């Protein structure tokens, strides 16, 4: 009786052991696949983009970066030219110059507005408010990061844009001095669709990202250096500027690039509030313009009417440029972080 029980137990044990080994193997294999998956996806996306964009790259040439305008040429590809072996509708002409500039301009405006607001908000949350205020407030800011961008676009085009164009822009436009840079803010105040409105909407979208990251960074700064500043007779502002901020400088640069990346790639909200001008850059801060991402989404419909596929290929080239800009921004940020880390302390370093 006893021996039988023992033998059963041994058999059961052997079976579970076998299962456990298989389990381990499956887990290991799955982990390997999971690690390679993002890489494969990236490779796949870029490859497809390059293949799709190839005809456009050949025909559009380097001039694509300096030219502006989107002309599909003869409708439905009734008359087709062959350039370098690529079928192109007669009269088709494309340029991405104004879109590249528009992308950079609107993202730059967004970051310039969002960065001080975010740092100020993060500072207030970590240093100025009692926990029972800062915790729910921080939570709301994080919620804001999850609001779908189409809602931002809708609000921008229906409410914010018209209101600004009526009550704010004219005042700024009429009072800006006529000096370089600032004279960009003079002239017609427009109708609310345009560069500055887009910059503001984008700023609102990236403030939560930068604020949440910066807040986490601030809360990791050890108290001792800050106390050292206070004990030396520095004001709160001086401690913030000379101790707290530099302590997390590289992290804030990273957070900013995170925001910049989102602004550069933001599609639907920009498509709604930019005015979708393809042919030229905005004449002033209030003028309509276009970005790479927004152009892709707004032009896809009409591009698919081009039977040669050349218009779609051009959109793929826009996508490729967008990807290159995003990667370049990220690389540049890494470089800056590396250089500024020379003096700063590693984040969260015990002191």
């Amino acid at each position, binding site marked *: 009786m006893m021996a039988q029980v023992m033998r059963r137990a041994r058999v059961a044990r052997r079976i579970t052991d076998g299962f456990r080994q298989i389990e381990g193997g499956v887990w290991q294999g799955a982990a390997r696949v999971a690690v390679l998956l993002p890489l494969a996806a990236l490779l796949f996306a870029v490859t497809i983009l390059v293949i799709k964009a190839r005809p456009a790259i050949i025909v559009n040439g380097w001039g694509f970066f300096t030219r502006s305008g989107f002309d599909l040429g003869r409708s439905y590809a009734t008359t087709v030219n062959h350039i370098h072996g690529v079928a192109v509708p007669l009269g088709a002409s494309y340029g991405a110059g104004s879109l590249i500039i528009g992308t950079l301009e609107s993202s730059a405006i967004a970051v310039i507005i969002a960065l001080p607001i975010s740092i100020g908000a993060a500072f207030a949350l970590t240093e100025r408010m009692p926990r029972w205020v800062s915790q729910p407030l921080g939570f709301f800011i994080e919620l804001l990061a999850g609001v779908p961008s189409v809602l931002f676009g809708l609000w921008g085009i229906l409410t914010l844009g018209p209101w600004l164009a009526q009550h704010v822009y004219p005042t700024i436009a009429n009072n800006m001095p006529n000096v370089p840079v600032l004279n960009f803010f003079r002239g017609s105040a427009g109708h609310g669709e345009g560069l500055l409105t887009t910059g503001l909407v984008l700023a609102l979208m990236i403030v939560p990202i930068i604020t949440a990251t910066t807040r986490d960074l601030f809360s990791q700064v*050890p108290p*001792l250096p800050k106390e050292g500043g206070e004990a030396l007779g520095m*004001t709160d502002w001086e401690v913030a500027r*000379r101790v707290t901020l530099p302590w997390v400088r590289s992290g804030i640069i990273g957070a900013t690039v995170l925001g910049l990346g989102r602004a550069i790639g933001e599609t639907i909200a920009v498509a709604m509030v930019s005015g979708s001008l393809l042919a030229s850059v905005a004449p002033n801060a209030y003028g309509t313009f276009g970005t790479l991402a927004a152009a892709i989404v707004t032009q896809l419909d009409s591009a698919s009417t081009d039977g040669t596929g050349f218009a779609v290929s051009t959109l793929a080239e826009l996508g490729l440029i967008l990807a290159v800009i995003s990667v370049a921004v990220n690389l540049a940020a890494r470089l800056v972080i590396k250089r500024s880390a020379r*003096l*700063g*302390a590693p984040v969260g370093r015990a002191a």
Partner: protein
Amino acid sequence: MTLGEQPRPVRPTVVSTTPSKPEIDPILEALDPDRSRPADVVNSQGLTLSFGNKRILSDIHIAFRRGTITALIGPTGCGKSTFLRTINRMNDKVSGFRHEGDVTLEGESIWAPRQDLLSLRRRVGMLFQRPNPFPMSIRDNVVAGVKAHQIAKGKQLDVVAEERLRQVGLWDAVKDRLKDSPFRLSGGQQQLLCLARALAVGPEVLLLDEPTSALDPISTELVEGLLRQLTPALTLIIVTHNLGQARRASDNTMFLYEGQLVEHGPTEELFERPKEARTERYVTGRMG
């Protein structure tokens, strides 16, 4: 009763370089800018301090004589650090902070309305338990306070930086890397840098909160030696857990126990002939 009424212990380093009292020219003495100033730089007059309902210090009466080093000893949680941090008002922002009694600096209450907090902290410097350099270059660390208080600017800052780094004996070690990060220095060097930073704004009083507790024995000796050289220009109050350090480095010692000042007096006397049983048990290591 103040510490000043008791005979000052003999300090060989000072005695050998300073002429004894009767030899001072009476005219020179009359011109001494310190003459009209009270001999007690810091004076705690019945200081009682609480955080919320928790009383930390009870009725502390003590005066700190100009140019002396006072060691503040007592078991953990006795209120040493709290007392120290009261003097430069670092406790003010702790939630529930309340105080009765008064602490004066040069005869004036540190909480007086006309007392400017920033300049109070310029006059009362502080060195912390662990080195706390700022995330800026070594040179900028030294002159950070000087810049904030606009004591000097431009090229003068370099002069101040060199002078103070020399004063703490760090100049030769860092003169070729003034623009480098301070975080690559050793712990002892970092603490010396913080000392140079505190000295650069020209304080009258220096509060030291266990300044060597994070340092190795050699750095500790270096810092202790420096403290001696800072008197009589500065008045030093040093919190320490290290009784040997209190004995070696201070003129006077005060012993705090459970928020009360049990005993104070010349260091030699307090260690050799304590008046209170609790003091004796603490300094002989039977209570800690």
